[in-house]
């Protein structure tokens, strides 16, 4: 049993079958990549996992519990965090404030009326947030407003915000999309470090094969809404079906 079990998930948009009977099992503490050409249903699948979309059929179990029908914030509270294709952070707040929000969410749950406490006096949480900023090399930017940061920094901050919640499963939606080579390499290094130092499962959607092959333990290839093959990176590389689906795209 993997930590995430997707069984026979299907989703239609009007006449379009976006997902048809997807089965996927993500093993605990592994990095599982989902690749496929444009329109293969990767993002739809991801949206079904986090509660943004509700599949028409099938089941999604996380750690033995169904996530279907739960709200995004409830799914997050179960231990699933998500990194978006375009970094989603709090643009009007400082880096430090951005970090404090997931810290509070982790400690206090989905809602708490802590109106008379003081953010700066939550010693434990401040320490935790600062430690995470140190880990991702952003401590010197802690008072910066995030709106003015580079995309690479925003991505780094978004990951730090997800990691500080100590999720059991981290979903990454094209974490290097739109990044320069140097930023991409930094991100790969960061993800490798996360993989080595933390007990965390990651599922990555990615276009960049360089990223996929340097990180993934297992790879699922999606095409037209159904999984084509699932195997280790080495086997996937030479697989004829994959070459066919990707003709000219992977290399």
């Amino acid at each position, binding site marked *: 049993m993997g930590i995430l079990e997707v069984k026979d998930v299907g989703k239609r948009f009007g006449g379009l079958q976006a997902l048809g009977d997807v089965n996927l099992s993500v093993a605990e503490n592994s990095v599982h990549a989902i690749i496929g050409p444009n329109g293969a249903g990767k993002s739809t699948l991801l949206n079904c996992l*986090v509660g943004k979309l509700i599949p028409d059929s099938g089941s999604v179990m996380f750690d033995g519990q169904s996530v279907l029908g739960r*709200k*995004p*914030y*409830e799914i*997050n*509270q179960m231990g699933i*965090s*998500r990194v*978006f294709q375009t970094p*989603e*952070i*709090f*643009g*009007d*707040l400082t880096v430090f*404030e951005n970090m*404090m*929000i*997931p810290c*509070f*969410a*982790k400690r*206090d*749950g*989905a*809602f*708490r*009326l*802590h*109106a*008379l*406490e*003081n*953010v*700066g006096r*939550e010693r434990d949480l401040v320490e935790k947030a600062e430690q995470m900023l140190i880990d991702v090399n952003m401590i010197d930017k802690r008072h910066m407003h995030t709106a003015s940061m580079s995309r690479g920094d925003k991505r780094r901050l978004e990951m730090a*915000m997800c990691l500080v*919640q100590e999720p059991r499963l981290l979903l990454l939606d094209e974490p290097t999309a739109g990044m320069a080579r140097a930023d991409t390499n930094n991100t790969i290094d960061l993800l490798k470090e996360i993989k080595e130092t933390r007990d965390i499962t990651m599922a990555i959607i990615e276009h960049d094969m360089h990223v996929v092959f340097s990180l993934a333990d297992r790879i699922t290839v999606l095409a037209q809404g159904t999984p084509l093959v699932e195997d280790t990176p080495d086997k996937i590389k030479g697989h004829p079906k994959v070459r066919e689906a990707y003709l000219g795209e992977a290399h």
Partner: protein
Amino acid sequence: MFGLNKKDTTLLIAVAFLALCAPFILNPFPEGSSLAQFNAGYPDLMQRFVIFGIFAIGFNILFGLTGYLSFGHAAFLGVGSYSAVWMFKLLGMNVLPAIALSVVVAGLFALLIGYISLRRSGIYFSILTLAFAQMSFNLAYSVLTPITNGETGLQLTLNDPRILGQSATADGGIPVTNLLPGIEMRDTFTMELGPWLFQFNTGYYLCAVFLLLAFYLSVRIFRSPFGLMLRAVKSNQQRMYYTGLNTRPYTLAAFVISGMYAGLAGGLMASMDPLAGAERMQWTASGEVVLMTILGGAGTLIGPVLGAGFIKYFENIFSKINDSVLHGWFGFMPDGLENALVFVSHFFVGKSWHLTLGLLFMLVVTFLPGGLVEGGQRIGRLFRRKSAEDAKSTDVKPAE
């Protein structure tokens, strides 16, 4: 102090000082001098400053922090006023239970309206709140007349039961609002210092105490994790959801808190002058508090108070200026120029003072979205930069 950092404590002390010394500060001109018309230190106006300050502080907790623009906040103020007057009619003339009831009723009303309106965001939220407020206004004028007394407004009469007080005073008048028996809201102690005249009014000081409490509470909320969450709602709701946070209770809590502030303002208003009318709930009244908040600086601590004071002061001064005053000002000029200037100024004063307000509002939104506070900061920065440059140039010279 009080769980605040140094900067916030300084701000709180400054507000406290201003509020307590307002009768002096607002009456800088000697009585009878030509500038005395610019004095604002009389009880009625000072009470308005403070009451609208409380209203705006509350509105700012919703709009300034979460960005949800409510166009129906006056409804809560109106409901607060009605509740307070009913307390005076049924229970007695003590203001404290009346104010308490205002806050509670306005809070419950806000809970109901907020629960429904907050299901939508953006302009839809604004329209929903507007619709609710207009509904309350229309109902107060028509069907709810038994409760609101319709167009006349709710007033005290000699037939009110007032179970803990008396229906009528010994000399057959309607009793007045008080804090404790003998301490009446209208009590005013007048101090003459040479040509100056200062008035200290019990009602004003009661309002000022509530203002300080309201302001202190708002500082605490701004600095709290709850306040941080509210700012996060304004910034990115999507990220909130995917960080495991449910935004709706946060926004609802903010809505209810700001509704209670409005109720407090309404209750105080009725305590100062025990009558309540539906026009307090009209959407132009809601627009006014939006204006105050924006003008002062939405999302800042002190901005709403400044905005409320600014608007109420100029409303009072500008609407008093008439033709003869203008001719007095421009009298030293040649007749043609004098008349021209009077004609132009005429647009902006007296009954047309709203024109000035509208223009000012447009200018602020266009050029100074952060309001007066941002304006102050810009000027401050300008000076600091200048002095920094001066410092730099003096630093450089010796090296040469």
